[in-house]
């Protein structure tokens, strides 16, 4: 009993529990259809690459997971969200493809410059956007949502301009490196894992995580305590932009083209949702990065499950909404309090009885 309590008391218990619950829906579905019950969880090697629904979740969820890293920091430090990440993804991808293909070229087999230069430029463009957002928020004290609204609407349009209003196709296998496979493993999984691990190491091994949280809890107090609050907020936005840049390149590399209209479309909402599903407060302060990452894969697990179950496309968003409402409600402080009061009452009754 006390062991169970210890388990359920962990901060990450609910996010993980919700993710598992979503996946378990598939066991019931497969069993009901007369398939092998663990179909959803089977991983095999087919055609030389890893194959299975779980791999799909990890693979397709990569962009959201990468975005969630940056978004978590931004939410924590500035008690606001960066709604420009989807558009910045598009801009980074467009900039990279424009450099690789040359301006105004809609389809190319030859790269105009080394691949690494294009990729770095794309990532740098992401950082630049992050710097812009961060400057507005940290130094001009503009509300995060208003500040990032600028690039939310402008970045995608700039991307379109860079691509001369065309979809730029790069028909060169080297550009597919970020979106396809390295050996049997889909590259996006590795990129996401690298981003998460680097972020975790930096946050755990340095005092940075602590600084960000303290700035998020009380900006003035942190400054009086000797922290440069503005600089820390600026840095969080730069990291967020960096993550958006990387996510944009991964998404673009999947399709080996820059489709500026569609890359990262409404990804900012999924990234914010991932942070919330991970049990983080959008009011800033304390954060749990792993929670956000689990939130990101939970969103993808829902999408993949709906596809696997074959829910009609007209009603799929409704199911998605219902599942999200349940997950968020279960983690709401009021609901948590209610359950802990109930169990306390039971314990008290037991003690009396």
């Amino acid at each position, binding site marked *: 009993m006390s062991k169970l309590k210890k388990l359920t008391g962990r901060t990450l218990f609910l996010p993980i529990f919700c993710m598992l619950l979503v996946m378990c829906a598939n066991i019931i579905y497969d069993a009901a259809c007369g398939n092998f019950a663990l179909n959803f969880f089977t991983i095999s090697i*087919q*055609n030389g690459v890893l194959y299975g629904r779980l791999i799909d979740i990890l693979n397709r969820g990569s962009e959201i997971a990468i975005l969630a890293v940056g978004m978590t920091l931004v939410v924590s430090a500035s008690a606001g969200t960066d709604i420009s990440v989807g558009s910045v993804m598009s801009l980074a991808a467009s900039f990279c493809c424009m450099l690789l293909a040359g*301006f105004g070229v809609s389809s190319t087999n030859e790269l105009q410059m080394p691949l690494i230069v294009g990729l770095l430029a794309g990532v740098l463009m992401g950082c630049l956007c992050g710097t812009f957002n961060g400057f507005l928020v940290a130094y001009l004290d503009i509300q995060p949502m208003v500040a990032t609204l600028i690039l939310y609407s402008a970045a995608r349009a700039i991307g379109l*301009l860079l691509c001369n209003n065309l979809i730029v196709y790069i028909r060169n296998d080297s550009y597919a490196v970020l979106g396809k496979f390295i050996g049997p493993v889909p590259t996006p999984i590795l990129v996401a894992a690298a981003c998460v691990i680097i972020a975790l190491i930096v946050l755990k091994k340095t005092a940075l995580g602590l600084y960000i949280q303290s700035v998020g809890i009380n900006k003035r107090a942190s400054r009086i305590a000797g922290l440069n609050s503005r600089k820390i907020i600026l840095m969080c936005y730069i990291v967020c932009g960096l993550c958006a840049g990387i996510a944009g390149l991964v998404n673009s590399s999947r*399709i080996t083209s820059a*489709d500026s209209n*569609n890359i990262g479309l409404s990804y900012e909402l999924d990234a914010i949702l991932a942070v919330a599903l991970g049990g983080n407060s959008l009011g800033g302060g304390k954060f749990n990065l792993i929670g956000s990452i689990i939130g990101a894969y939970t969103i993808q697990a829902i999408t993949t499950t709906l596809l696997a179950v*074959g829910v009609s496309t007209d009603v799929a968003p409704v199911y998605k909404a219902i599942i999200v409402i349940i997950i968020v409600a279960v983690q709401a402080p009021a609901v948590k309090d209610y359950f802990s009061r109930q169990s306390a009452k039971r314990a008290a009754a037991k003690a009396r009885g």
Partner: protein
Amino acid sequence: MNKKFAAMAVAGAALCMAAIPVSAEEGNLVIGFAQVGHESDWRTASTKSCQDVFSAENGYDLQFVDCDNDPQVQIEAVRGFIEQDVDYIIIDPIQATGWDQVLTECEDAGIPVIVIDRTIDDSDKYVSWVGSNFKTEGLAAGEWLKAYAEAKGITEINALVIEGSTGASATLGRTEGFKEIADANGWTILDSQNGDFTQVGGQEVMESYCKSYEGQFNVVVCQNDNEAFGAMDAMKAAGVTYGVNGDVILISFDACTAGLEFVKSGDINADFECNPLAAPFVEEVIKQLEAGEEPAKEVYMEEHWFVNEDILASITVEGAEQPLTVVTDEIIEAQY
């Protein structure tokens, strides 16, 4: 850099022209065109078609406004045209509703309105609508598949459909048309899911299909070319062969240049065009109006059906015989 600057200058000039009254060359017909935006290659081709047909050499004076997907801007653009007292107004409506008032203003001013591509649902105060018949496209895909399967001796059809964005008229029409033929011939449509008209969407849906219906399907229908590219990626990764020499017949819609390249290489078996070049048909309507005739309320554009193999010459769609075009380099070159 120069090009970009030029593009901006042109856009600026277009805006200025929309704002000031027109001093048209004597005898030229003045035409106002409120375009949706410039979000895709298809849209760009549509704009260019209008600019080519309604040029000064052809005796027209085109007032072009790019509304950048903003319905408010579009309505203001139409009001601007009324102010300028243009001869004809062409609208590609961003939204299907909210038009009655401004179209009434056009009617009061005595300016005929021609709607292209997308439809207006809440008003009939326009002369003609010129666009694609998406259902016919779906029917054509079905009829082609029927004839192709017969020619190849395929008796059983198990199809998977990757739909476009939910509720889009192209999605509804293409789904309805293809399903009609499928039902009539007893084909099985195993599943039909939303790929959002994007390549990533196509990849994700096909990835899931490959697992849910492993070895059960022999036809994949993608409702635009981008989805077909995504489906090809996913099938390649799963080791499923497709196209002319593969196990799976791949059908696509739109037939943009990039799509036709894959038809030529045999990766896509057949591609059903959605014609963006509305301007010649609009000009036809305007000529009828100038001659005092009454044009048809709905004008459907001629569209082409592109295939890789030269085994069928034509198909019969809704009782009419329609030719199939085998894709060559010249055809790709000529496509938008």
